[in-house]
């Protein structure tokens, strides 16, 4: 369930691993699985075509005898009868099922959110709608400065759109990356002409039929031709309701992607999974996790008993800046920087009690990659060694 990156790669893996039974992929969107990272970046800017984003070609599914039910949502699971019911009434029998329904955008309770020209971004259709508005010289308001807001703001500027941002906090990505690293990104956006309204939020969208301005909590009235809202997502868990499948910030699964109901698994954005390295449950809303956890779930559906313990990793491109993150942290007591924030070439380590929980790199992909074993090792490391550019990070794990 979910013709997503996790769902598509899981189906492909089931066949690659020799599963010969009936295999059905159900998706709410009318498309075969595709990758979402380009939607806020190169696809939004019109630099690549949609087929470049496909997880596998459309022919692949027929060739592999993977039946698809696209444009129709799975609405209910009946664990006792082993039945999945689709929105069009079709009932599919299963021996094992994977929930890879992903997440959906949070919709803030704001008046006139349904005005024309007010968008959010999750699907290729959303991206297409924004693209038609994103013409040079037009004015956009971006609400929220998480990864989607940040990337959309950058892409719109690159398309010549004037961008005003309304967001909480004082810098982009403050909640995830903190003030120091977020400050670097704020400067980059300012240099590219983004106008910030931090510490503020959107209170209302106004216009006759089509949005004309955003009114903020601080009372500002920002004129615009269109607006894009990026205020986070929530896991798409509705079909688990009443099934006995445990839900807590997503579908709860163990390190083998197993839900609380035998024979039903979950992977990707929807899965709140137990992570053996961090010794807690985490839910990850990124490409790399979907790409790896889908196949991991598939292998466990076939009885491989392989724990999923990848160190989570993602990237974000904004203008010509490449940001990458690995690990998992929610708080930290020391941020150790190797390189230079000013020169925008650094890797910064989020440490607690001397252990590196996570690292973020700006234009330092190689160092980020070399930090992953260090994060996995969970051993205390001296900050001086993390900082010293002459110390090979690979020797610290």
């Amino acid at each position, binding site marked *: 369930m979910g013709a997503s990156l996790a769902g598509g790669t899981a189906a492909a893996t089931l066949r690659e691993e020799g599963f010969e039974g009936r295999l059905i992929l159900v998706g709410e969107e009318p498309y075969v699985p595709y*990758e979402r*990272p380009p939607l806020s970046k*190169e696809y939004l800017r019109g630099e690549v075509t949609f087929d*470049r984003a496909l997880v596998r070609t459309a022919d692949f599914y027929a060739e592999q005898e993977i039946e698809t039910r696209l444009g129709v949502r799975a609405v209910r699971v009946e664990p006792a009868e082993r039945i999945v019911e689709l929105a069009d009434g079709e009932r599919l029998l299963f021996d094992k099922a994977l929930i890879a329904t992903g997440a959906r955008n949070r919709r803030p309770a704001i008046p006139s959110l349904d005005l024309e020209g007010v968008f959010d971004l999750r699907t290729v259709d959303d991206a297409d709608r924004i693209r038609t508005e994103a013409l040079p010289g037009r004015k956009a308001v971006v609400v929220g400065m998480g990864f989607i807001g940040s990337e959309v703001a950058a892409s719109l500027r690159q398309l010549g759109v004037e961008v005003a941002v309304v967001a909480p906090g004082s810098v982009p990505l403050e909640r995830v990356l903190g003030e120091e690293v977020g400050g670097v990104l704020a400067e980059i956006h300012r240099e590219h002409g983004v106008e910030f309204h931090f510490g503020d939020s959107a209170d209302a969208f106004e216009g006759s039929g089509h949005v004309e301005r955003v009114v903020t909590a601080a009372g500002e009235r920002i004129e615009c031709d269109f607006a894009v809202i990026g205020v986070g997502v929530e896991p798409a868990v509705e079909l688990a309701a009443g099934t006995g499948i445990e839900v807590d910030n997503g579908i709860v699964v163990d390190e083998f992607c197993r839900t609380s109901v035998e024979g039903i698994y979950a992977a990707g954005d929807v899965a709140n999974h137990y992570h053996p390295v961090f010794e807690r449950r985490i839910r990850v809303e990124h*490409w*790399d996790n979907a*790409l790896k956890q889908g196949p991991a779930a598939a292998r466990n559906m076939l009885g491989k008993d392989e724990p999923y313990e990848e160190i989570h*990793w993602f*990237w974000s*491109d904004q203008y010509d800046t*490449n940001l*990458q993150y690995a690990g998992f942290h929610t708080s930290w007591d020391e941020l150790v920087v190797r390189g230079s924030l000013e020169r925008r070439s650094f890797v910064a380590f989020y440490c607690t009690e001397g252990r590196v929980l996570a690292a973020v790199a700006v234009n330092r*992909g*190689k160092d980020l*990659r*070399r930090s992953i074993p260090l994060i996995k090792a969970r051993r205390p490391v001296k900050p001086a060694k993390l900082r010293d550019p002459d110390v090979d990070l690979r020797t610290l794990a």
Partner: protein
Amino acid sequence: MGEFVTVADAAEVGEGELAAFEVGGERIAVANVGGTLHAFDDTCTHLRCSLAEGELEGTVVTCPCHGSQFDVTSGEVLRGPASEPVQSYAARVENEALQVAI
């Protein structure tokens, strides 16, 4: 395959190292895997980052920007987001000169 042309001193690419050179207007990466040289297009087929600035582990090069992985011996994609292989070329050391045939 084209003629072998000298692009650098062989000593410029140590064991386990990567480097990129301009050859006939193209950016060519060279990987030294246990003393054997492998040449391939330096430009990642995903979003054009320089693979020579990435990480070499065994015969696998990882793009520094988005993590795509290629087999340096064949140019084959081992892991996305890239989906197209990079062109690979013959490379050799001749009289301490690093030569690539493009």
